[in-house]
């Protein structure tokens, strides 16, 4: 099957070989596991609640993108790295159609909701398992990257939360896009939700987790492109 739309270069995280996908999801082939961060379902209606009537189609757009990512990609389990729901009432605002769609995606799969700051207690009733953190082999899954403390190094960490994006100079123009950022020890995933913006990887909030030597995997229509930190423009 044409499992991978577009080009991509795998990266290694604490010995696990991972594949960044152009949709913003990460695939772990040996586990047949798909990892996504920051779906922010029902962000549109959260804004509507405060008077800005954004098009209420973000959840269906996000779920459609998720389905498209899974198409042709053998997926036994899905890990959502937190902030899957924009707020604690978000799940209740999901349309019937969207709930059904989500159920179809979850059916027959091991589905894990990692708790995020927007959704500390992911909703009951939708299925799936909720946890604060998950350790699987060489990898640890959490919402927000952890500061190294007490001389304990963080290794094999996968997280979301920061919505990283990067800017790269090309021959014709600079191109900005969502990205994965990793240094072989930890990786931060781009946000997957349709209405999620981004934070430049050069921002101190993201920089503090990485040394000088890290790589970004920039998403574009048609592929994921890898660049060393030295290639980034600010």
């Amino acid at each position, binding site marked *: 099957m044409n499992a991978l739309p577009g080009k991509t270069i795998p990266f290694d995280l604490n010995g696990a070989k991972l594949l960044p996908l152009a949709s913003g999801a990460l695939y772990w082939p040996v586990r047949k596991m798909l990892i996504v961060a920051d779906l922010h379902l029902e962000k549109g209606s959260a804004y509507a609640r405060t008077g800005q009537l954004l098009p*209420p189609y973000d959840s269906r757009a996000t779920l459609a993108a998720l389905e498209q990512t899974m198409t042709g990609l053998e997926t036994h389990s899905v890990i959502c790295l937190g902030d899957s729901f924009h707020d604690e009432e978000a799940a209740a605002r999901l349309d019937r159609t969207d709930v059904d769609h989500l159920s179809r995606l979850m059916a027959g799969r091991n589905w894990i909701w990692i708790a995020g700051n927007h959704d500390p207690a992911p909703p009951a009733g939708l299925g799936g398992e909720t946890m604060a953190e998950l350790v699987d082999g060489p990898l640890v899954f959490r919402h927000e990257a952890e500061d190294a403390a007490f001389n304990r190094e963080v290794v094999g960490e996968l997280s979301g939360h920061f919505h990283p994006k990067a800017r790269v100079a090309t021959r014709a123009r600079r191109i900005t896009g969502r990205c994965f950022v990793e240094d072989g020890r930890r990786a931060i995933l781009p946000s997957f939700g349709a209405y999620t913006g981004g934070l430049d990887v050069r921002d101190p909030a993201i920089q503090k987790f990485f040394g000088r030597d890290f790589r970004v995997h920039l998403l574009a229509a048609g592929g994921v*492109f890898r660049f060393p930190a030295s290639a980034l423009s600010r």
Partner: protein
Amino acid sequence: MTLSPSELALGSPFTEWFESRGWAPHAHQLEMLAAVRAGRDALLIAPTGGGKTLAGFLPSLTALAAKPGEGKNQGPHTLYISPLKALAVDIQRNLSAPVEEMGLKIGIEARTGDTPANRRRRQREVPPDILLTTPESLAVLISDEEAATYFGQIETVVVDEAHALAGTKRGDQLALCLARLQVFSPGLRRIGLSATVAWPEELKSWLAADGDASSVTVVKGGDAAAPVVSILETAERLPWSGHYGLHAVPEIYQEITKAEVTLVFVNTRAQAELLFQELWRANDDNLPIALHHGSLAREQRRKVEAAMSAGSLRAVVATSSLDLGIDWAAVDLVVQVGPPKGISRLIQRIGRAGHRLDVPSRAMLVPCNRFEVLECRCAIDGVEARTLDGDPPGVGGLDVLAQHLLGLACSAPFTADEAYAEVTRAGPYRTLQRSDFDDVLSYVEDGGYALKAYDRWRRLFKTAAGRYELADRRIALRHRMNIGTIVESVTMKVKLKRGPVLGEVEEYFAIHLEPGDSFVFAGQMLIFQGIRETTVEVTRGTGDAPKVPAYMGTRFPFTTHLSDRVRDALADPGSWSGLPDQVLEWLRLQQWRSVMPGRDGLLVETFPRGGKEYLVAYGFAGRNAHQTLGMLLTKRMERLGLSPLGFVASDYVIAVWSLEPATDMAALFDQDMLGDDLESWLEECSLMRRTFRNVAIVAGLIERRLPGREKTGRQVTFNTDLIYDVLREHQPDHILLRAARSDARGGMIDVGRLAEMLARAKGGIRHRRLDRVSPLAVPILLEVGKEQVRGAADADLLAEAQSYFDEAELVAEAMGGPDHGELPLR
């Protein structure tokens, strides 16, 4: 002095006041009075100066003077609308003086966004007779719950600089507000004050109720003395390309020393900065020369304006920021650096000099390159022939209508039929389809989303009687904070490290800076240090090769009329006499090497150069249309296997380069490119996204200001690109997408003009295959490299960039290079 019957009609104390000054009323002032007294709307078309403002106010002043009693007003008698806040405040001063001298008890007050809250409150409680305001402030007043009472007795509206408002979104908004005022006060009379325009009939329709031009009496002000306009004959070598005019700085400086006060107009802010800096370098006499453009801090601009009024400046370098505004009588010379792009605009700018009808305005044009010499020549011919140009106002924007409908609901409930009847009385909306109106109303009501409704968070509630009312009073508060149709681009403050804020640059420019880059801003050389939150931090620098600010400010549209004149001049060698030798030589060389672009048809040259194939088409359709053409041509060339690499467009020509030569020009330039190719490109292009952003903000989908967060100002609260993508996918016919498409087609994409050009080319393409670049094509080829090159897809560019870094990484790794000490743990 003998008095005519109409002069007598002026009555006391006006006649005495004119006499005491030894003045006589101008004929146009009395004609305006007569028209309004006869119950008609009136439009005064006159050059600046000559008592235009007084002509607009005389009908109100005489009526107010004759009004009996001292009773408290319910609301103002007369409303004056100006596009500039500063003008509203200035008029208050200028009008109060004669009113006091005549001993009249007429209250005159200004209300703008800068008016403090306590004065606004007082203006509500004790309304002045004459209220001076802007379109935005009027829209806020209209949205008030008491608006019907407040404006119930209004008799006259005076719209100043009407030519500058008609055809813009601010003009649409004003027309809708006037329709509202007419409902409050059916007897309302409208007075327009305008510069000379190419489309007086359309302007009348814009001004009048029901778009009925026949209700408007046009009064012509005295013609100004014919201006004296010349072209700077430079002794320097005239550049082939470039738009800064720096070669002429010593000569411009000489002109400044000879004149009393000079206004130096340029077309972009970047140009203003550079020219200003170079003028100071040449300023051996230390003349007070100042800088004025829209990116400078407001206080700084006010300071320059005040210095101008006080007569303490000898010259100001300015962009369109000074096109309108307070009259400075002392200005005796206008210098236009760079091409004027339109004859009406040039006449306007020239009119800023010599504000007396009997003294001719003096102006000098400074072409920055050889093409511009032709354009300047043609513009002067146009000024002498007194032709005018520019496009008449089009139909009103649906985003503005959305903002207005919410404003109506904030004021009072309405039925759909009432509101439709009312808004179609506004000139720009008289052809509005009911179905479009209904879609806009439905958007205002609950977002108008077809697949999923926001029932719980609707803005409007429809009662059983079919009246739309505000679902929640808090919506009104937020709406009033977001009124306005000018959408500023996202900007960042420029701040000296441990120093003051110097002004603002567009975010687009700021994010392209690398630490250490130098650029000229606010007349100083600055070094970019970094971005702190929303501030660009800089230090002072030295040196003379700055990275010039890329913020363009305005890029004026090249009018069709001026373009036709340039075409005609090129086609007729008989008209070349008097052109500078350098230009003549250039044109003759073109005749010899290739051929001149004719009056009709389309000249296309192709030639090889540096291993690439170039195609240059002389479309003369303006930069926007050429940009669109460039996108469509490269698409088509890609399909034909010609491997296009990029293109660059100017007002005159489009140049495309590719690996393979194009041969079948008829097929390449076929009109069918305006079908599917255009549609599919339009949806993806960044101009469309930018247009959608503006529409989304004006229509209130995205709010600029939220209660309690007033200071965040221009930063919008949501990235509109994300919304655009989702909406396009799930509801491609949503009213806001339709509004954005129609805005884009008319403006940045300029489909209309491209279509005209292609129609003209059909059957008339002259293809010249050359062995080298033609003289006429040199200027555009010199633009390659300065202009952003478009045409390639993101993924291709990134793949290319990646391969470069992969290689660099490999080499660095192999050679044990720096920065690779930390290998990933395994």
